[in-house]
């Protein structure tokens, strides 16, 4: 499954690669969780990111559950925050990963969901670089993504995320 090429200062070993297709913006990736459509959503302003869905998280102790909303493969430069609306029940963690000012950042929040809509604001200027992204290639910009995870059971009505200047 590999081949060799005699070459210059050493010899090359190349490994075949078959990359999977990119996730499209707004798609969800799940682990120990399910996603189903929802119609209920608060009315707010901004560039919408992700349709309203119901997320059923079934974490199992050492095997936490997650649902990941995929962002677009472009920089968030020029935007100041991402606002997320949720209601439901259970304790969840929100991790927002994004490229800002040339660095791959993370913002993290622990949230207890309730029956009323909660507004969770991620101020993009408040994140810190945590050491991934732009892996050894300066022209690469990591897309952003929102991870909702639970170590137990949680049901989240996700009203959508909104990107604001």
């Amino acid at each position, binding site marked *: 499954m*590999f081949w060799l090429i005699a070459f210059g200062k050493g010899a090359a070993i190349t490994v075949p690669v078959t990359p999977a297709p990119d996730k499209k913006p707004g798609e969800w990736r799940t682990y120990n969780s399910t996603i189903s459509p929802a119609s209920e959503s608060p009315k707010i302003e901004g560039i919408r990111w992700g349709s309203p869905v119901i997320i059923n998280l079934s974490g199992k102790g050492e095997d936490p559950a997650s649902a990941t909303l995929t962002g677009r493969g472009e920089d968030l430069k020029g935007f100041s925050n991402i606002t997320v609306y949720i209601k439901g029940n259970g304790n969840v963690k929100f991790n927002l990963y994004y490229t800002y000012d040339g660095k791959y950042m993370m913002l993290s929040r622990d949230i207890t969901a309730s029956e009323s809509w909660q507004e969770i604001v991620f101020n993009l200027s408040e994140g810190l670089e*945590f050491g991934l992204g732009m892996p050894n290639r300066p022209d690469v910009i990591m897309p952003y993504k929102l991870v909702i995870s639970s170590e137990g059971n949680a049901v989240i009505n996700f009203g959508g995320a909104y990107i604001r200047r």
Partner: protein
Amino acid sequence: MLILLLTDAPFGPNVKVSNWDISTGLDQLEVSLAKSSSWIAAHWIDTDWSGWFSANDFAISSDGGSTWKFVWYIRPPDTVNCWIGDPSVASDPTNPDKFYAVGMIYCNPSDPKGEVYFCKNTGRPDTITSWSCSILPPNDGWAYFKDKPWIISLGGGVLLVNYTTDKYGSYEIDIARSTNDGSTWNTIRLSGVQSTVAYFYRDGSTVYLSQNNFNSWPNIAIRVRKSTDNGATWTSLGDAVSFSPGSSTYCPNFNRPAKIHNHITAQGNNIAVAFIKPNGSYCNVGVAYSTNGGSTWNNKYVAQASIDQVLPMIASSSPSNLYVMWQEKVGSQWATKWASSSNWATTFSSPGRVSDHNYTFNQNPAGHDYNGFLYDAGNLFAIWANDYYGDDAGAVYFTRTAYTSLEEALDNGIAGEFDIYTVDGRVVARNVKNLKEMHLPNGVYFLKTGTRVIKVVR
């Protein structure tokens, strides 16, 4: 003879490992190091290519690091949409001719994903045809962002590779474990800690793992785990240290997230992790250490200073002796430095030089998150990258110590009838047959037997 020796630094002359004329401004970065009784191997990122961005190089020395042979480099066939990084190399403690290497193959520049490559040799490690590489299982087809692999061989075909992955949502450390020399692998999930970088260290039958811990973000902690069953199961020893990185994980003069670093060593119940301990806005070298198996931890600066110190790598030789190496800004240039402790981090020596020169340094590299530093059989072996000494490109340099502790010298078969000198040339004793019975004050000495002279520290 003795006069010349007196002017020696503890580390010997530096050897350029990336030993060709590197193209202007193109760097050799992020080098790892492994050693057996027969060979010393290095694996690093090489950006000196005209047709593509980077490859990972593998070079080896059969003469203790005096000369190096470039054996192979690895790259994906599609060098536009895929590229490499994060090389790590390991030696088999039960077979001096066996080495292993891992690194990253990233693909999809618009939505980067990664898989880990795994390489091993079945013949001489200095021969390209001895080597084969494949994708480390599970090969998820670049569905996830895996990153930052690190490998250790425990001998007898037992291999551990850790890496971070977003397979479970947020970034966590997975361990790939093989018990048949990499023929098959199983995956161990270290759940419960958001983490992007981990290192291994083996001390006897115990394997330690250090990993950064972002659970209390924006504080950074360093979680330590251990395994006593060859990496099959892991026990948490808690967080060795937790600190605020301030407004950035970067350093004023180093445009990499240096504060996520953690490199571990251990001897018995003594464990130590080298990390970046912020000193105001500067990055300084810190060591978190325990002398009771991880039940309690302390931490301190190694050499606090209002300058940047980055990429601390840590090694040990006994439950007392600890060594730390790092790269440090010196005026407008940089140098590779080290310090030692003879009381497991209670106190450290003043920093000394590893590099025999100061060098220009790319402070905005395309990747430079570790160097190589290890102890073996009485000596320290050091390798570092991003060194522009006498060149217009960043190179990899290697050196080793020329002295050892008296106890370790004896343990490694240094025997005979010795004349003992202090470092200023004063004779301490002649014709000493039993060095263990010599009650020498702490210090550095020269031992001369016949035509052989070695330096030792007491």
